């Protein structure tokens, strides 16, 4: 890509995509440099200076064991984005593959996939996750396993539905009349035309997954303390909400800002990719 090509591409971005991408980039950079941005350690307790309100020394205040909330929020970026990324894009990868194959091949494979999918979505998501956590014990890995079992279904459905449309188009037929192997027809020709809606949805899914992990942490089923996960921090602060509003509110705000920037990206991508506007949230 030349500089001109990049400039042309940027010119086509809608405002929501530019704003969302800028915010998200800022968040990512902040997360990368978190250890150097504040003089404090996210785990060191300072029992002499607990529940301090926001000040110049502690812009986000301190929590009930005297840890600097800003430092913990900044370190939380790493944890929450990592969890959000893995819980979104790992299931998306195989959800897309299975869904696209299902839609293209049809027949018994499609029937099998769709029944499997029905079984997976028949369970209430949170209940199933709580059951899996009850069996395997809380922790990030348990959340991954639970999400991997279920989250692919939405992508499989999207990819299958799009593939049913795509496979009837002339260019797919043309690829078949030219004698290309089925794998090439599906993955090289049809697939790139199938993934747009999934990419747009993945932005919303990313937000939902961060919220899910935060919710589970809030319930005590997610990330174990003392890891500075945002949801866990909100949960820790709830006993002090009337005396020290900052412990819960400011990590909560971090979730909101991250979620909003991802939603803006999703919205902008939907426009840029020529999709009709979708609202999943």
């Amino acid at each position: 890509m030349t500089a001109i090509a990049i400039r042309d591409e940027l010119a086509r971005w809608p405002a929501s995509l530019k704003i969302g991408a800028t915010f998200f980039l800022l968040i990512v950079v902040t997360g990368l440099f978190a250890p150097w941005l504040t003089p404090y350690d996210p785990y060191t307790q300072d029992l002499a200076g607990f529940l301090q309100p926001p000040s110049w020394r502690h812009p986000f205040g301190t929590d009930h064991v005297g840890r600097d909330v800003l430092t913990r929020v900044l370190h939380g970026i790493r944890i929450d984005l990592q969890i959000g990324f893995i819980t979104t894009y790992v299931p998306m990868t195989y959800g897309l593959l299975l869904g696209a194959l299902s839609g293209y091949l049809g027949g018994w494979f499609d029937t099998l996939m769709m029944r499997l999918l029905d079984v997976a979505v028949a369970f209430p998501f949170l209940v199933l996750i709580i059951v899996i956590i009850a069996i395997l014990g809380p922790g990030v890995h348990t959340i991954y396993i639970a999400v991997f079992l279920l989250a692919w279904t939405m992508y499989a459905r999207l990819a299958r539905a799009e593939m049913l449309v795509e496979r009837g188009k002339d260019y797919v037929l043309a690829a078949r009349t030219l004698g290309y192997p089925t794998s090439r027809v599906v993955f090289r020709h049809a697939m790139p035309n199938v993934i747009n809606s999934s990419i747009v949805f993945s932005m919303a899914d990313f937000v939902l997954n961060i919220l899910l992990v935060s919710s589970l942490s809030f319930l005590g089923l997610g990330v174990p303390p003392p890891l500075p996960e945002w949801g866990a921090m909100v949960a820790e602060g709830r006993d002090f909400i009337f005396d020290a509003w900052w412990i819960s509110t400011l990590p909560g705000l971090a979730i909101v800002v991250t979620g909003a920037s991802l939603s803006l990206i999703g919205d902008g991508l939907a426009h840029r990719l020529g999709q009709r506007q979708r609202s999943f949230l």
Partner: protein
Amino acid sequence: MALLEVRGLCTEFRTPDAVIPANAGVSFNLDAGRTLGIVGESGSGKSVLCRALLGLIQSPPGFVTAGEIVFDGRDLRHLDETTLRRVRGTAIAMIFQNPMSGLNPVWPVGDQISEGLRVHRGLSPSAARARGIAMMRQVGIPSPEVRYDEYPHQWSGGMLQRAMIAMAMACEPKLLLADEPTTALDVTIQDQILALLVELQERTGMAMILVSHDMAVIAETSDHVAVMYAGRMVEVAPTAAAFRTPRHPYTLGLLQSIPRAAGDGRLTPIPGQPPNLARLGDGCPFADRCAVASPECRTRPVALREIDPGHWTACHFPERLAGLQA
């Protein structure tokens, strides 16, 4: 020996309510280097025939239930999928009606033209590129070195149809199926594309099946004409004979419904509608719309028979047409 011999090909589509015979016993021969024009109205089974020849009927709901497709001495219906795939890529190619949708929007045009060479011939990307650019030049795409890397949305319909032709011709097929190749294009471009096809045919010696509902297109390009109606061939003849002395009332009807500048300007349409394929009787499927039908036409089955040398018709009473000719 003929390059392609089709014998009694039957294709049907099974829906929960009915079985629709889209091709009912289609037979024809095609010699190397020759062109067969297939005409017929929408739903007469032309496109289904092309797809069936390539083994590309979506199944279910479509099934090829009977017949032989002997191409180059091999019955394509009995080849395994891998062998058939190689035939599709290298020996038989096909181009479609709508060039706008026939190319993948996400890949550069040139890559798509040379893709077959990489897949089937194992050419390196740079060799395939050189060959692809040569192909583009052959089909009359200007400045191919630049346009190789452009995307389909940057091209016009006529240029895209040339690209489709280049794509189909890349591996030098012996047979090209052209399914309404000019229908989506405007008239001046139509002529250019047809001229290009004829020129390529002369240069490479390939055979061509040209499907169209436009009698003029067929007249311009084909050696033989096959007229399809209700999933069967009702008349097969050398082009000149079919146009001068049609021996089936449907062919005559088609010829009379072509607008002409000369004459009183009135068209003679064919009355009625094409029959519902799911509910055909035993008799001639055209009987209900035929000006010269007898009661027995509705009950007695018709088959193609040779009434003049090389001139076949599926009509019980072709002699009755003599008085009606325009």
